[in-house]
């Protein structure tokens, strides 16, 4: 009888082998599938006088070919690769935005200054002035268009953060359910591993890990606990925690990740802890590249507007009025933290030296125990003082602060983004071409009857605006005998006498600076007067035009163009860097996956061979049963 049962045991095992092989073939391209193999063992032999007689075979288990170490390696590489992928996808948009030189700020900047130069050539020409205004409008539109695009990218990041959070929650839920299912299967499965469920859970963890880097800890009961960040639990056994996309308390325009802690409370997740995965890439891109690009662009717009305005206000327009603001700029607005307990409202404005002092960083003003601390978020440099105004003055970062009203409470903070809205907020403040202040408000003259060779320079109006109230008062400079000194007379000068004269040296009164060169004779008279009807004067336009190449930004080290070029090179460099790191990480993933696949992947040739193997085993076992059957028949025939 044993031959028959041995044959049956072989038949059964071969059948299971065929099923397992078929399962492998069917799942050859199933994501996360680990091939399964049969673990076969011999049945207990029977002791007879002739020794132990084998009793056939049985299948001990169907094992999945799986190495935890190799899988972890894939996970780790994958989280970095996904982060770089999503970073690259975002920064490529800025890279492409800046790719076409003809659609960037550069040509519009050149065109604006070309417009100014045309006004220097034809200061009385309304068409030339109109052309300058139009070029200004184009420049402003270019700033706004670039900024608009960056804002769209920011909105895109915000909504992607929301969808990633939703994805993470969905994965976390499924993993918790699988933990539960695996627990039940193991309990009911007499210690056998539910291979396909384990594969499914591993695959879900791998997918989750593409969204945000996770760490996992396997429990004795077979469930896996999943953590993110610095150990915040996401899944514990069959329990899952929920993430929530929320507005940051510090900056409501920033969607950040919060962790629900029960009772409807949500704790904001520090961005520094969201590392790896698509979400980590998004957060890193926003914090490093997007903020910086938008701020730096805003800084160029603000510096240009403030410089042009300062110069323009020292000039005189075609109607004889003093120049006003040429551009309008958006003043920074400190945003109080949502969690502030005090009533303080802080106001901000650009300082007189903002064009040079502004950086591309954001700032945090915080208050504690009577002390205000201003922190530059790019490098955490900080300044402290007893008042908001004093701390801004001490920091000299291009903006002034005031406590408008109320009282701060300990721990209150305000976010200051001085340059964030610069590119969006710039606008041309004048629309009448005659209002362009191409002339200087004062002019100089040498009296015809002068007998000396002294000449007077055209004169400059002293910065900063507003110009001196007596700028346009008539002032006469009369040389004494001997002409080594002169007397000054005119409202606002204090009428000094016997002022020592040095040829070519600056003479400054009433907010103007002139030089008298050559050798004036005794009795020679020079006058400084209002530039009435001086429509052909282009002195102020020349000074405006000179701003194009002047290094007025970044502490006097950069022109507008070089500051803009810096954005282009920074974005280009970062894109390239992310590309390179991304490629390296992707290669790591490929390698790690290959190693895992070498072990766990399905090879169809191998399975084909296995099919043959089990088919033949099946056929052989069937033959054994047939022979056992015919043996029985032979026996019956004897007695028949």
């Amino acid at each position, binding site marked *: 009888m044993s031959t028959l049962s041995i044959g049956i045991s072989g038949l059964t095992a071969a059948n299971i082998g065929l099923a397992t092989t078929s399962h492998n073939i069917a799942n*050859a391209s199933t994501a996360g599938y680990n091939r399964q193999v049969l673990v076969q063992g011999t049945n207990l032999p029977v002791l007879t006088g002739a020794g132990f007689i084998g009793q056939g075979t049985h299948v001990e288990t169907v094992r999945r070919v799986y190495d935890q170490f190799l899988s972890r390696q894939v996970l780790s590489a994958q989280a970095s690769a996904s982060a770089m992928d999503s970073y690259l996808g975002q920064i*490529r948009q800025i*890279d*492409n935005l*800046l*790719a076409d*030189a003809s659609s960037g700020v*550069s*040509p519009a*900047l*050149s065109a604006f*200054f*070309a417009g100014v*130069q045309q006004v*220097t*050539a*034809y*200061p*009385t020409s309304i068409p030339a002035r109109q052309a300058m205004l139009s070029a200004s409008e184009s420049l402003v539109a270019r700033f706004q268009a670039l900024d608009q695009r960056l804002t769209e990218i920011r909105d895109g990041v915000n909504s992607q953060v929301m969808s990633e959070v939703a994805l993470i929650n969905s994965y976390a839920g499924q993993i918790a359910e699988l933990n539960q299912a695996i627990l039940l299967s193991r309990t009911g499965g007499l210690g056998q591993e539910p291979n396909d469920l384990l594969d499914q859970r591993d695959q879900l963890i791998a997918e989750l890990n593409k969204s945000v880097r996770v760490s996992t800890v396997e429990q004795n009961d077979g469930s896996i606990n999943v953590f993110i960040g610095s150990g915040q639990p996401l899944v514990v056994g069959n329990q899952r925690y929920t993430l929530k996309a929320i507005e940051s308390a510090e900056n409501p325009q920033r969607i950040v990740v919060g962790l629900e802690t029960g009772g409807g409370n949500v704790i904001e997740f520090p961005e520094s802890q969201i590392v790896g995965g698509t979400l980590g890439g998004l957060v890193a891109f926003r914090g490093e590249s997007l903020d910086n690009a938008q701020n730096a662009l805003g800084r160029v717009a603000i510096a240009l507007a403030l410089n042009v305005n300062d110069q323009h206000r020292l000039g005189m327009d075609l109607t004889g009025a003093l120049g006003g603001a040429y551009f309008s700029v958006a003043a920074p607005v400190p945003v109080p933290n949502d969690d502030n307990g005090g009533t303080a409202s802080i106001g901000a404005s650009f300082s007189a030296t903002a064009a040079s002092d502004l950086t591309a960083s954001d700032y945090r003003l915080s208050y504690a125990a009577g002390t205000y601390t201003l922190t530059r978020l790019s490098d955490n440099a900080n300044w402290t003082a007893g008042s908001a105004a004093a701390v801004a003055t001490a920091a000299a970062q291009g903006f002034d602060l005031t406590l408008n009203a109320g009282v701060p409470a300990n721990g209150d903070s305000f976010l200051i983004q001085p340059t964030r809205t610069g590119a969006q907020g710039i606008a041309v403040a004048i629309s009448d071409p005659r209002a362009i202040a191409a*002339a200087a408000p004062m*002019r100089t*003259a040498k009296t*015809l*009857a002068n*007998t000396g060779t002294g000449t*007077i320079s*055209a004169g400059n109006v002293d910065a900063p605006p507003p110009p001196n109230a007596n700028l346009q008062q008539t002032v006469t400079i009369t040389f004494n005998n001997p002409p080594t000194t002169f007397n000054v007379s005119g409202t606002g000068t204090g009428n000094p006498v016997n002022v020592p004269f040095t040829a070519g040296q600056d003479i400054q009164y009433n907010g103007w600076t002139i030089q008298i060169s050559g050798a004036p004779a005794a009795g020679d008279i020079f006058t400084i007067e209002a*530039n*009435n*009807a*001086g*429509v*052909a*004067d*282009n*002195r102020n336009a*020349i000074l405006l035009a000179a701003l194009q*190449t002047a290094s007025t930004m970044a502490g006097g080290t950069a022109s507008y*163009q070089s500051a803009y*070029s810096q954005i*282009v*090179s*920074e*974005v*280009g460099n970062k*894109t*390239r860097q992310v590309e390179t790191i991304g490629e390296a990480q992707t290669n790591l993933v*490929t390698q790690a*996956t*290959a190693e895992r*696949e*070498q072990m766990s*992947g*399905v*090879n*169809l*040739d191998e399975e*084909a*061979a296995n*099919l043959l193997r089990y088919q033949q085993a099946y056929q052989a076992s069937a033959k054994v049963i047939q022979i056992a059957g015919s043996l029985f028949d032979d026996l019956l025939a004897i007695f028949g």
Partner: protein
Amino acid sequence: MRISTNMQFDSGVASMNRQLSTLVHLQQQIASGRRILTPADDPVAAARVLEVQQAADVMAQFRVNHDNARSTLELEETQLDSASELLIRAKELAITASNGTLTFAQRQAAATELRARYNQLMGIANSADGTGQFMFAGYQSASPPFSRTIDDLITNGGDVNYAGDDGQRRLQVSATRYIEVADPGTGVFMGIDDGTGGSQSIFKTIADLVGAIEDPGNTGAAFSADVAAALGNINRGLDDVLRVRAAIGSRLNEIDSLSTTADDMAVQYEQALSTLRDLDYAKATSDLERTLAGLEAAQKSFAQTSQLSLFNYL
């Protein structure tokens, strides 16, 4: 080594993808003629392109300023050329009138022509450029700078009125050089040293001469002295005009040489830009060939190896 069937497919596809992306990049470069498609291709060069482009734009603007300055100065030069011819004629007339053999009636012909010349000179001093701006008015170019008729000067004495100022418009013609493109009327027609320590305008000089010629009582030595004084003033006035013309000439020369420099620089900037951003076609096409060959080989080998399967023989 065990190879899973998935890996066999994935690695084949990945290799083809990689080559295809190189191919597309090369194709874009060739189609656009640009080496740098986005700043990431060469961040340093991309930023440098912008800087060089601005320098080229600024230079081109200076070149426009040169043309503006040249046309303004040439217009002024034309007017001053007429003025100097006119003053030379006035000198001839003064010399004719001073001929002692002429009767009072005979010398009136010179007075008549001098009057016409006075008005002509007034026209020159009050001339406007192509945009209706008065050239010799300083900053106050909206209204004619010189006034008073010759009769007014002869009858009531005094000098012409100048309603302009000393303003002198300049244009930027290089990074550091601003060049004067106008001369105020005071420097051209006024402030002539009258030989006695005072100064007067060229108009008063002519008016005085005409007054002397037309005065029947002014004869003999006194008349000769008046004409001699007028001649001296006309000569000094002519010197002033010639001095301004010479200054204009040297400015025009300077502008010409700056323009030549600017044109040379423009070529250099163009070359610099080309080096920075333009594609080396020879290299790009050879790269393209190589990548194409690589991709074709990858496709062919993938097609062949992917057909290998034990199942084909079962």
